[in-house]
C-alpha cells in the first residue's frame, strides 16, 4: 500500500479490529482518506463494507484501534464536526410514520447549516411527495429522501453505504449526476461502498478493496486501469515464461495469458528484443476487481 502523508487526512483509521460473534470481520485495518478524495469501496458481499462504515462512524462499537475524523477521536466528535458529516445508510432507520416534511424539519434542528434550497431542488427534481409518510414511499424514493437528508446540511464528508442499491438505472444515473455536481464543489470528500463497479468508474478517483478484514488494495483509479493489465504472450515453449508482478497465468497451446499488477517495462523490452510476441490489453474495473480478490 502506498504511504500517504498525514497532512489532509479526513479519516484516519489505525489497526481497527471488529468482531461479530467471536469472528473477526475487520482485522487490524489501516486506512486513510484524504480531503477531496472520492473513493469507491469495493468488496464481495459479506466482506464487511457496512461494518467498516458503521465502525468508523461509531454506529457500531469497535474492539480495538483508533479512528479519527477531521482529526478528532471518533468516539468524541464535537457537534460542529458531526455537522460536517453526511451519511446515507443502506437500510432505512428513519421514523416511518413521519411525513417527509416533518422528517426534514426534525433533522434540520440538529445542524448549524442547512440548505432549504437544496432540499427543495432535490424533492422537486426527484418527484418526491413530501406530504407522504416514509412508510408510504417506494424503496427507491426512501433512498432518495435519505440522500437529501444527508446532503441538506452541506457536509464536508459524505459516506454512502450502497447508495444505489434500491434505485433503478435511471434513478442511479440521477444520483451519479448529483455526486458529480458535488464533486465540483470544493471541500468535499466522498466515500461510497458499492458493488456496482460502473458507477464507481465514473465518479471515483480512488478505489479501495476490502478483503479478508483488511484494505488489501487502495490506489488511484486511473493508475489501476493503467497498471493492472492483461498480457498475451505468444510462444511455442512447453515451459511458461516467468512474468514479473504476476497475478494469474493461464497456459494455452499458443503461449500464455497473464494478468499482472504492473508491467515491468524493462522485462517487456527484454522479451520483445528476444523476439517474443507480447500484447498488452487494458482491463475494465470489474475484471480487475475479480483478479485482485481471487
Amino acid at each position, binding site marked *: 500500500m502506498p504511504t500517504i502523508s498525514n497532512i489532509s487526512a479526513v479519516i484516519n483509521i489505525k489497526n481497527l479490529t471488529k468482531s461479530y460473534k467471536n469472528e473477526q470481520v475487520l482485522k487490524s485495518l489501516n486506512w486513510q482518506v484524504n480531503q477531496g478524495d472520492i473513493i469507491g469501496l469495493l468488496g464481495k458481499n459479506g466482506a464487511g463494507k457496512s461494518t467498516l462504515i458503521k465502525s468508523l462512524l461509531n454506529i457500531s462499537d469497535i474492539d480495538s484501534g483508533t479512528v479519527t475524523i477531521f482529526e478528532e477521536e471518533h468516539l468524541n466528535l464535537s457537534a460542529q464536526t458531526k455537522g460536517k458529516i453526511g451519511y446515507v445508510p443502506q437500510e432505512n432507520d428513519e421514523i416511518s410514520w413521519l411525513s417527509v416534511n416533518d422528517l426534514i424539519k426534525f433533522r434540520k434542528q440538529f445542524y448549524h447549516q442547512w440548505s432549504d434550497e437544496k432540499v427543495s431542488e432535490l424533492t422537486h427534481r426527484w418527484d418526491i411527495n413530501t406530504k407522504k409518510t416514509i412508510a408510504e414511499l417506494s424503496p427507491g424514493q426512501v433512498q432518495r429522501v435519505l440522500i437529501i437528508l444527508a446532503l441538506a446540511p452541506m457536509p464536508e464528508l459524505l459516506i454512502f453505504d450502497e447508495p444505489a442499491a434500491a434505485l433503478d438505472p435511471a434513478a442511479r444515473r440521477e444520483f451519479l449526476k448529483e455526486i*458529480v455536481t458535488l464533486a465540483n464543489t470544493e471541500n468535499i470528500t466522498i466515500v461510497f461502498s458499492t458493488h456496482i463497479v460502473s458507477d464507481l468508474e*465514473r*465518479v471515483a478517483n480512488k478505489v479501495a478493496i476490502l478483503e479478508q478484514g483488511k484494505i488489501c488494495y487502495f490506489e488511484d483509479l486511473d493508475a489501476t486501469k493503467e497498471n493492472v493489465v492483461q498480457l498475451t504472450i505468444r510462444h511455442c515453449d512447453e515451459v511458461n515464461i516467468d512474468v514479473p508482478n504476476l497475478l494469474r497465468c493461464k497456459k494455452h497451446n499458443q503461449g500464455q495469458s497473464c494478468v499482472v499488477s504492473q508491467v515491468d517495462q524493462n522485462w517487456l523490452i527484454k522479451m520483445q528484443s528476444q523476439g517474443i510476441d507480447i500484447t498488452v490489453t487494458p482491463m475494465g474495473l*470489474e475484471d480487475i476487481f475479480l483478479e485482485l480478490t481471487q
Partner: protein
Amino acid sequence: MDQFTISPSSGVPIYKQLFSQIERMVLNGYFTVGDHLPSVRQVAINLEVNPMTVSKAYGLLEERGYLTRLRGKGMVVAQRDEAVSEQEKFKVLNKMISDLLTQAQQMGVNEQEVIALVTASASKNTMKSNKSKE
C-alpha cells in the same frame, strides 16, 4: 456541447479517452486555433464524470501544447508548429497502424496481405472521390 463521448467501463482510463478524442479533434481541424473548449465543470456534468478526470485530460493537452489557458476564458486551442502537428498526426496514425497489424496477426493475416488490403481500400477511396468530382 455533446461532442465528447466516453466509456466508463473501458480499460482505458476516462482522462485518456478524453485526451485522445480532443487531440484528434484538434489534429483533424474540428477545433481550430482560438476555439474555446467548454469548462471542466460543464464537461464533467455533461459526461457525468469526476471533474478531476476532465481536469487531468485538459492538463495533459495543455502540457502537450494542444491547449493553452487564457485568463478569463479558460482553455483555448493553441497555435502549433506545422511540423509538430504533422509529427503528431503520424504518431496517432502509427498507433492505429500498430493496432491494425496486431489484430491482423491475431487473425493469421500476414503483413503483405494487410498492405494489399490497405492499397485496395485506398484506391477505392480515390475512385469514389474522383467520381464525386465528375
